[in-house]
């Protein structure tokens, strides 16, 4: 049996695969857009590196703002 032979089953599977591909692409685009929005719109981005830093302490931040 030739693999190239068309069967309705191929069409259904192809439709499913294309649908899933489009959903995944949309998800990637959305996560990318979210990342850009969060990074460009957020405040200062500073990672916690296991040592105390006043700039990461909310209480200190309030004092500074006052």
């Amino acid at each position, binding site marked *: *049996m030739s693999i190239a*032979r068309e*069967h309705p*089953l*191929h069409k*259904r*599977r192809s*439709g*499913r695969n*294309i*649908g*899933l591909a489009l959903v995944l692409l949309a998800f990637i685009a*959305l*996560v990318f*857009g*979210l990342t*850009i*929005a*969060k990074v460009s*719109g957020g405040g200062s981005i500073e990672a916690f590196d296991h040592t105390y830093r006043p700039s990461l302490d909310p209480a200190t931040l309030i004092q500074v703002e006052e």
Partner: protein
Amino acid sequence: MTDIRADFTQTGPADAEFADYVALLKPRVMTLVVFTALCGLLVAPGGIHPVEGLAAIIFIALGGGASGALNMWWDADIDAVMKRTAKRPIPSGKVTEGEALAIGVTLSAISVIMLWLATNALAGALLAFTIFFYVVIYSMWLKRATPQNIVIGGAAGAFPPMIGWAAVTGSVSVEACLMFLLIFMWTPPHFWALALFMKSDYHEAKVPMLTVTHGRRATRRHILIYTVALLPVAVATGLTSIGGPVYMAAAVWLSLGFLTGAWAIWKRDEVQAEADSYATEKRVFRFSLSYLFVLFGALIAEAALRYLPAYAEFATRFNLLGSL
């Protein structure tokens, strides 16, 4: 040696089309979820980045779809018995129960985590609770146990505007609770009006619908009671910071219209209803659909009109419940 030949003549559940998986997510229910969640998001004070807002709506809709898939997985036995639901993907044999469960659980997890990351923890937690409520409390527990199942199930459908609100504000306020109550009180008369003229086979499926357990007379009375209870909720929403003259006019006018319809349903008996093929019940059902869409549309219109300073100043006079 591994035989890699595929059996191309094989058909069955594994050969579902993409549309069958989409149908698993109950896209028609999703439209209401998207619209009310969008309303909650747009009327909430403060702002949200458009991409974050879009993501919030998508993940709220996805969460609603996931709970729909889990509902179809759990209720596959009921769906197979009832004519209205027999063509759903699982009873029709296009999608297996295992697939529906896997899709439901996976999409639930993705939607909750992504909503949390896109907006805040409260919105994510509310979405998680909504899915839990719809699947476990409603579908698994109370749907087959009490004729008040529609009332309880309505709570799950009422959460989206609250989640939309929480996505923007990070909190839940009186306005969000009133939007919740608006859908919660609207759901029973809406579905019971449908149950009166859709002679569904709930009895064969052993689902205790009010029309079956307490009769049609009691159902008509319940429709009137819930519609009366809906009116103060609709009006109270207009007295908060999201209300205003446009919404209030729509709420009073439409609630009186809904009430008139519910009264007409209550006054009728089965002989009268069958004589005109349930014309009043069908009219009230259609009206109830417009009722919710117009009221939430009016809330969005209020939010838009407040960009006009003169209107915003006038509308604040309606905000009598704003200090709560």
